[in-house]
């Protein structure tokens, strides 16, 4: 399938506030600008609205150009080649005996982003993306499924490997055993880590949520994570999903420490929320597409730990969890979660022993942050979260 769209997201600063409207019809532009103006008026005056990002902000920064976000080879792919990629996914699954494919998808995207405002901002950038995913299953007396994917801004994805990974994981998960309830060390794979961070951490570091008292975090400088844990939000990370020279308000991208060796260093802001606090934007205004309102979000959240090793080797009595079922049901405010683990394995004395049939992890994300002791070398880009697998000590499992 092929689809193309183009549209305009309009913000108008008027009467002491701003209004938003969008359209995909250029002829309609004047009318939609009036609509945005009316929307600003409906909202009424807002003392905190200080106008759009200006061209004079961080002038030196503005020259920094990002790398690795556009690959002509992706744009040049034809339908025939895309189908070959899908076949590679399937080949990968078939290479693992006894498994069969549930689905596979390859998609590419070319995006042209342009932002202009009346404060002199005029920025334009082209970006590409390629994505491949495969889901495979293996039957024992029931069904075992597993999933793998990769996403990249340039054409360097091994599609066969994605299929093979999914198939191996499905097959290895067969004939799972039950385990005793109790406390275990957990090895969380990059996908499982990203699910927890995506659903809880990103909420907790959102400057707006902090300001409104809806975050567990309140004080910069507080020790909130394990002393080895460092988390960075980097809008300039080479080849990242969230990488761009500027954010979706036109503010230049930068590299910001969120946690530095366990200490909370920064929250993330767009220009409006930062202005409320008398701060500068952190370059974290993100729009899903032209028709969506810019919202505070991470750019590329990078999870790292001083202690790098092989989390499985370091585990005496623990559980490896590849992903969670229902991570979005976590309580983003308190950090409490009770989640079913998927494709989970018992780990003993540094080795994977057997698959686990069904288990539930009961925990609190903010306690878990303090219990992260080792990071692996298997760094994976899971959309806007870039993380290795991690070892978390002493968690409750049923």
């Amino acid at each position: 399938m092929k689809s193309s769209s183009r549209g305009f997201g309009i913000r108008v600063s008027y009467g002491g506030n701003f209004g938003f409207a969008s359209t995909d019809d250029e002829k309609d532009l004047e009318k939609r600008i009036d609509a945005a103006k009316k929307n600003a008026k409906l909202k009424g005056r807002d003392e905190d609205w200080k106008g759009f990002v200006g061209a004079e902000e961080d002038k030196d920064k503005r020259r920094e150009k990002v790398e690795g976000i556009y690959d002509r080879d992706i744009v040049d792919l034809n339908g025939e080649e895309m189908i070959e990629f899908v076949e590679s996914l399937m080949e990968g699954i078939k290479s693992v005996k006894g498994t069969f494919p549930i689905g596979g998808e390859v998609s590419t995207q070319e995006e042209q982003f342009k932002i202009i405002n009346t404060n002199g901002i005029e920025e334009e950038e082209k970006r590409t993306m390629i994505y491949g995913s495969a889901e495979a299953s293996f039957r024992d007396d029931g069904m075992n499924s597993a999933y793998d994917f990769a996403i990249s801004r340039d054409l360097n994805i091994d599609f066969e490997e994605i299929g093979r990974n999914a198939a191996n994981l499905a097959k290895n998960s067969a004939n799972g055993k039950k385990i005793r309830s109790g406390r275990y060390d957990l090895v969380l794979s990059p996908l499982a880590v990203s699910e927890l961070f995506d659903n809880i951490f990103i909420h907790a570091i959102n400057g707006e949520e902090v300001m409104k008292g809806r975050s567990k975090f309140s004080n910069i400088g507080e020790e909130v994570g394990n002393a080895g844990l460092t988390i960075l939000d980097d809008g300039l990370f080479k080849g990242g999903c969230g990488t761009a020279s500027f954010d979706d308000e036109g503010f230049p991208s930068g590299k910001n420490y969120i946690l530095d060796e366990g200490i909370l260093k920064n929250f993330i802001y767009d220009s409006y929320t930062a202005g409320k606090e008398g701060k500068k934007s952190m370059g974290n205004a993100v729009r899903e597409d032209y028709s969506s309102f810019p919202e505070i979000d991470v750019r590329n959240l990078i999870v790292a730990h001083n202690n790098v090793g092989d989390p499985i080797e370091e585990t005496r009595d623990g559980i490896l969890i590849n992903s969670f079922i229902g991570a979005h049901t976590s309580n983003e405010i308190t950090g409490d979660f009770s989640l079913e683990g998927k494709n989970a394995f018992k780990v003993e004395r540094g080795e994977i022993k057997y698959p686990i049939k069904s288990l539930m992890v009961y925990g609190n994300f903010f306690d878990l942050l303090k219990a992260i002791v080792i990071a692996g070398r298997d760094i994976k880009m899971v959309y806007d979260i870039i993380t290795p697998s991690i070892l978390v000590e002493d968690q409750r499992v049923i």
Partner: protein
Amino acid sequence: MQADFYDVRRCEIENRAFAIEDKKIERVSSSFDHFTVVRAFLDGGWGIVSSSSDPDEEAVLKDAIKLAKLSSKRSKKIHLKRYEIKDFKQKIEGKLLREEDELSILREIEESAKIDERIKNTKVFFSSSRMKVLYKNDHHEEFYDLCRSGYSISAIAKEDGEMQYGAEREYGIKGSDIIEGDRPHILAKKAADMSIKLLKASSPPSGKKRVILDQELGGVFIHEAVGHATEADIVLAGDSILEGKMGKRIGSEMINVYDDPTMMEYGYYPFDDEGIIPKRRTLIEDGVLKGYLHNRETASVLKKEPGNGRADGDEVPIPRMSNTFIGDGDMKFEELLELVSDGVYLCGSRGGEVSTAEGLFHFNATKGYIIRKGEIGEMVKDVSLSGNTLETLKRIVGVGNDLKINGGHCGKEGQTVPVGSGSPHLVISSCLIGGE
């Protein structure tokens, strides 16, 4: 080259959304989108081209046929069945208020949630969209014009370092007048009241318990755990626990499950995104699996009836639910409580996830109550339930007579569509409950 089948879907969507938080209008936005999707089917392959500009249909069709030819080389050679459908036109008027009036009503609704000084934060979200859809293929043309609106109210209560959240929402096939009347105010108070009561709630004991699910959670269970597993594309991909179970008993005899796009609930549609006029489908009858949900393609493969081919915007129509529910039984709520005797009453849903292949589900209830000797006791918080879908279906030992359908949004393969889900109160003889 000529297509074996082609169709064209044109949509115009006008949307507006407001968010008010702590008396401040946080968001006012309005958008206008339109797109055209042309699909061609040739020798078993689909080619689909969508565009947000007003394209030259013939040129786009040629493009779609080219893509179809390309994908047909690797496709199974299925024959797409044709259906005789008459031209159709429908307009459901939704009353639209002036934006100024909508905002002032929403402000009053938010005010209703401020019931106590412990309520520290309140939020009202409203959206209304009008959608015009034109569908045509080589022998007929259909059109509808429809309004969908909805709102949600959430409240956060704080006391002694404890923070809790309560929320209520309502969606319907309605204009923006959905916010008129007493109901939104009652829901606002309910959301606030819940956040306050949860402050004092304890966590439930974990383990296997006898439970009652309320209509909302029962609806979520039937939608997530059973409904998705009846979607024929999932069945054909080998990803459904219900594959090969047609005509077999899969649950308690008390269970009847339907999917009905013709009901005026939030999942209603006059024709699906492949131009098919839909019908009510029986998915489970007296515990026996009776049907799957189909789009044109899966219906052709399995020789069944389509009518559930739905798309989010310009995406591909795939088998989706509409209004999915468990039919009424004959027990009163008091009788269900007596049946449970000692257990937990679980209410509302804070989301959930299901693995359709393994048949595992996990849901979080918004709140619960301990049941002792058939009486409702104290409130509990952070309670989740999980289990195996088929085992759980067999363990339904009581079905109430108080069916209620709630509107919501369902995601699948990155596509979100409006749906209704519902159930009467249900008793499950044993279910894994998680808490503290």
